[in-house]
């Protein structure tokens, strides 16, 4: 038996509880039971708990760095052949993800103090963020599929509640609903996979599942159809969480929610979803079709997401589609067996996208506006916001040697030999993203001031401080990446690849800086171009397609069933019932009349029943 683990590792189960605890401590304020005082203490307590989570997580990372990966599990529920456990897999990958989650949560919560300074219902917001953080940090540490599913669903719930935070706003009502239902579709498909796997493989631990899938593949235990269905079920959950086509619509709508939540949603939530995919990838050996689906979905998401982003006039949506696009690249990398690159991309995208959304939040807070056509000229007046935007953009585009540049270099290098098409997808996505970031930069920060940007002081310190800190972090991302991935090193790609990546980024920047704004947002008169613009601006009409297909189908079926129930089944029953209508009328009279006589009737009928029984049985015995 190995020596006992150090206390921080033994107590690792506390880390998700800090987040959930944050929700609990916010309750007195959120429920309005402290009426005379404001709700800020709930925010401070949540920040404190998140800080504790960050420190605890760092300590565990340090210990794991020293001792190697650890695994902890606790029994949760057993019955018959079913053993469900709470398991924590303390690998460096998971802990890096945990750091990302807790740190981003800390930054976002601090940022929210400033962004939501005029908000009264702060306690509810912080309670929800605490819940969110708890589910996320449990999810990234989870060592078994059931716990991952459990927390993914909690994440779905907290997304619903966070998007629905401003519940009185009409578009929020539909946005929250759609976010929940879209994710729920993915979750139910995932649940089908989880339940099937639990029945087939017994254990839910990922390591056991990997072993089982290897056996199943070797022995042909599972029919190809079952394997394929299983694989499709398993990828459906991450697809929904990562907002991949065709389940991407919710992320657009979720932008109705508060910006600090958008920061988390576009950076860590999608990352957590991709981590689940990362963990189930080895199981997909049973389902070659699922791999193909991942590649197709990833490619469509990467390129179509980037294209749709180009046509958005809304500041937040221009970047939420870019999230779909980057996660598409992650899907491709995972599907092609490059998990290392996928993880690095998640990390650098997570930091940079969070920073980008902070910058966006600053712009919205200052100008009360997220319409690109009404913004402009902020660059000289808002230093922290402008620098944050530029650094985040540099971190996302493969041009300057920040995070994503190295990821794209590694990706192109790895895929060039394997399947050059996907290397091309990476370069194209890079180019399109560069166009998008450049045109938004021009629209928001350059040019002359518009009426809504005429008076634009820099944001208050509560927003500026986390933004500047994160700016520094994004600048340091390459060092962090080099630390995580020492072999073969983040620069392990030849010069031609480096040039190709930089060139695609540069081309994007040049195009983005040259194209007239009219071509982005005024509708062209020429028909094919106009059609294309509208197609992209309205996200390939996905919402309308959904309405016309799935929603209409379910609604129609529901109406049909209801009609059948009222007219058919119930009508039949009533027809029969009408025969006894007369007697029921009598009963009714009696009810309003003498109740006591009624009880008497009951007693008498019981006696009669017993007597008849006696007779019946007696007759039976004699006969």
């Amino acid at each position, binding site marked *: 038996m190995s020596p006992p683990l150090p206390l921080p590792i033994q107590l690792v189960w506390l880390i998700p509880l800090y987040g959930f605890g944050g929700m609990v401590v916010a309750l007195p304020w959120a429920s309005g039971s402290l009426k005379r005082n404001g709700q800020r203490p709930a925010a401070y307590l949540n920040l404190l708990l998140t800080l504790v989570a960050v420190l605890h997580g760092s300590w565990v990372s340090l210990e794991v760095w020293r001792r190697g990966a650890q695994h902890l599990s606790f029994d949760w529920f057993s*019955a*018959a052949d079913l053993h469900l456990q709470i398991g924590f897999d303390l690998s460096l990958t998971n802990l890096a993800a945990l750091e990302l989650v807790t740190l981003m949560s800390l930054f976002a919560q601090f940022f929210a103090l400033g962004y939501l300074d005029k908000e009264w219902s702060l306690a509810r917001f912080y309670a929800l963020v605490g819940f969110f953080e708890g589910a996320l940090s449990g999810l990234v540490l989870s060592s078994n599929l059931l716990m991952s599913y459990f927390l993914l669903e909690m994440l*779905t719930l907290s997304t619903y509640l966070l998007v629905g935070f401003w519940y009185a706003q009409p578009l*929020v009502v539909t946005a929250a609903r759609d976010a929940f*239902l879209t994710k729920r579709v993915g979750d139910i498909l995932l649940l089908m996979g989880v339940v099937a796997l639990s029945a087939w493989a017994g254990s839910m631990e990922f390591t056991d599942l990997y072993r089982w899938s290897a056996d199943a593949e070797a022995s042909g235990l599972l029919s190809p159809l079952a394997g394929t269905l299983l694989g499709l079920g398993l990828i459906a959950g991450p697809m929904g969480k990562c907002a991949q086509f065709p389940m991407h619509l919710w992320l657009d709508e979720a932008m109705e929610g508060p910006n600090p939540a958008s920061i988390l949603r576009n950076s860590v939530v999608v990352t957590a979803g991709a981590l689940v995919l990362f963990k189930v990838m080895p199981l997909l050996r049973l389902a070659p079709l699922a791999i193909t689906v991942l590649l197709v979905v990833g490619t469509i998401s990467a390129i179509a997401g980037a294209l749709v982003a180009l046509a958005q006039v809304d500041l937040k949506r221009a970047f939420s589609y870019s999230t779909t696009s980057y996660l598409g690249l992650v899907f491709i990398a995972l599907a092609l067996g490059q998990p290392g690159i996928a993880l690095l991309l998640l990390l650098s995208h997570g930091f940079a996208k969070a920073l980008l959304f902070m910058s966006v939040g600053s712009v919205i807070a200052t100008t009360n506006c997220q319409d690109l056509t009404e913004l402009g000229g902020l660059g000289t007046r808002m230093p922290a916001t402008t620098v944050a935007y530029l650094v985040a953009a540099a971190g996302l585009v493969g041009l300057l040697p920040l995070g994503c540049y190295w990821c794209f270099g590694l990706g192109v290098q790895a895929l060039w030999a394997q399947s050059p098409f996907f290397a091309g997808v990476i370069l194209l996505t890079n180019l399109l993203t560069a166009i998008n970031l450049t045109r938004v930069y021009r629209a928001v920060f350059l040019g002359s001031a518009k009426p809504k940007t005429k008076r634009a002081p820099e944001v208050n310190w509560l927003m500026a401080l986390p933004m500047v800190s994160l700016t520094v972090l994004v600048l340091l991302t390459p060092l962090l990446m080099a630390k995580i991935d020492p072999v073969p090193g983040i620069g392990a790609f030849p010069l031609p690849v480096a040039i190709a990546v930089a060139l695609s980024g540069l081309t994007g920047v040049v195009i983005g800086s040259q194209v007239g704004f009219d071509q982005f947002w005024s509708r062209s008169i020429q028909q094919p171009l106009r059609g294309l613009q509208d197609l992209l601006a309205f996200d390939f009409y996905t919402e309308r397609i959904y309405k016309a297909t799935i929603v209409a189908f379910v609604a129609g079926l529901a109406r049909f069933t*209801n009609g059948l129930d009222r007219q058919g089944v119930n009508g039949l029953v009533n027809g029969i*019932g009408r025969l006894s209508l007369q007697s029921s009328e009598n009963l009714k009279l009696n009810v309003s009349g003498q109740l006591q006589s009624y009880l008497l009737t009951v007693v008498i009928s019981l006696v009669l029943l017993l007597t008849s029984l006696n007779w019946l049985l007696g007759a039976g015995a004699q006969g």
Partner: protein
Amino acid sequence: MTIPGLMTIPWLSLLLLIPFLGTLALLLWPGEPSPGRLRTITIALLSAQLAASLALLLVFDPAIPGLQLQEVHPWLPGLGLNYQLGVDGLSLPLVLINAGLTLVSAVCSRDFSKRPRIYFSMLLLISGAVNGAFLADNLLLFFLFYELELIPLWLLISIWGGSERAYAATKFLIFTAVSGMLILGAFLGLALFTGSVDFSPTAVTSERLAMGSQVVLLVVLLVGFGIKLPLVPFHTWLPDAHTQASTPVSVLLAGVLLKLGTYGILRFGMGLFPEAWALLSPGLAIWAAISVVYASLAAIAQTDMKRMVAYSSVGHMGYVLLAGAAGTPVALLGAEFQMVSHGLISALLFLLVGTVYRKTGTRDLDVLRGLLNPERGLPFTGTLMILGVMASAGLPGMAGFISEFLVFRGSIQAYPLATLLCMVGSGLTAVYFLLLVNRTFFGRLAVTPATAEPVQDSRLDVQLAPVAPRETVPALALALGVVVLGLFPAVLGHLSEATTTAMAPLANLLAMAPTGGIG
């Protein structure tokens, strides 16, 4: 753990005596006691019943799979009717739910305008009868209690119900009377065919019968309990009964009385006719799936909140049939979980819908808007409602999830298609309940038809009576139960596992055996 003296108390009879004597006491109470007084007495009696039910936990040995704490007294031996009681892991949680929910329904009974004496005595009578049905270890005794619960419930609907109460109550009466007749028919048929006059389920075995007779009897029994459950297409009485019943009665109906159907199917359908059960179970799984999907789809189209929750009940009880059809230990434990969690969740939802109705005068989804409004709306009710619907939709961390997971996990190998269909039903639950929450609680506070012009809408001033903190206590307690059971399912698993596991092989082994029977 044994405490001397505890074992000598006839606990099970006590669970019948408290409510039955309470009924008598209320009916015979001298003078004209005030309604508040009657309510207090009822709550005291039901609290005593809950305490006695909880005390069972001290003397109950979860390791024993079969019936325990049995009490046998001959009554009409010629008829085979004996006063025979026993409790096991299947019935104990249901007895607890019965005690808890009847107490909840008495606590939330506030409208005393009509015949309070009858009202509260009927509540007690129902609770006693349900206890009797769950504890009876004799088919005829079960039947008597099963019928005994019918009359008071019918009275509760027809006297204290809504405007269409006569129609709904009559419908309820006819359906359940038919249900009772079919059940009695099946029991008597079993006795006649086997020539036994012993109605103790342990003594009755159907295996001597020809398979044809077994199947006929089982089908009769299934239809009988299927009406109570209820299963599509025998469900139409339930939405009507719920919409007309008052809130406390709906709580009882959904939380407790439907469980008589599932309990009966598992205890008697599966228990008495293992061979026929094995033969019919593929059909039962399909029936369950159809019932789940049909009810979920019908629920989506409802605009009355109560009807929606009622259809949701139909759907959720279908899972129990699926689990029974699969008959694996995990599935049967899941069935037990599902019965308990549905009891808690549906009671919670009916309580909350009742609160909304009491404050706004409507349950129409096209009329209510924005009830989350913190000052003028019903924010606490809304919060609990979100919790309740999420639990019902099977969100993890709450009782619904572990129940559904166990049912699905236990059934998927036996009946993959039916299980997947039921999961789709679970997904549809999220659809209709999300519509309910989004429509009624989100948006600007308004009590106005959706067709009203938006300008008028924004100028509408809504005056709703506030929800007093004490009004929320029952719902809060149920919500707490839902979360505790969801996070610590071992609490219930510990009580029931031995029994459900022992019930399982019966069906399973026989499923393997060649069909055809002996007779």
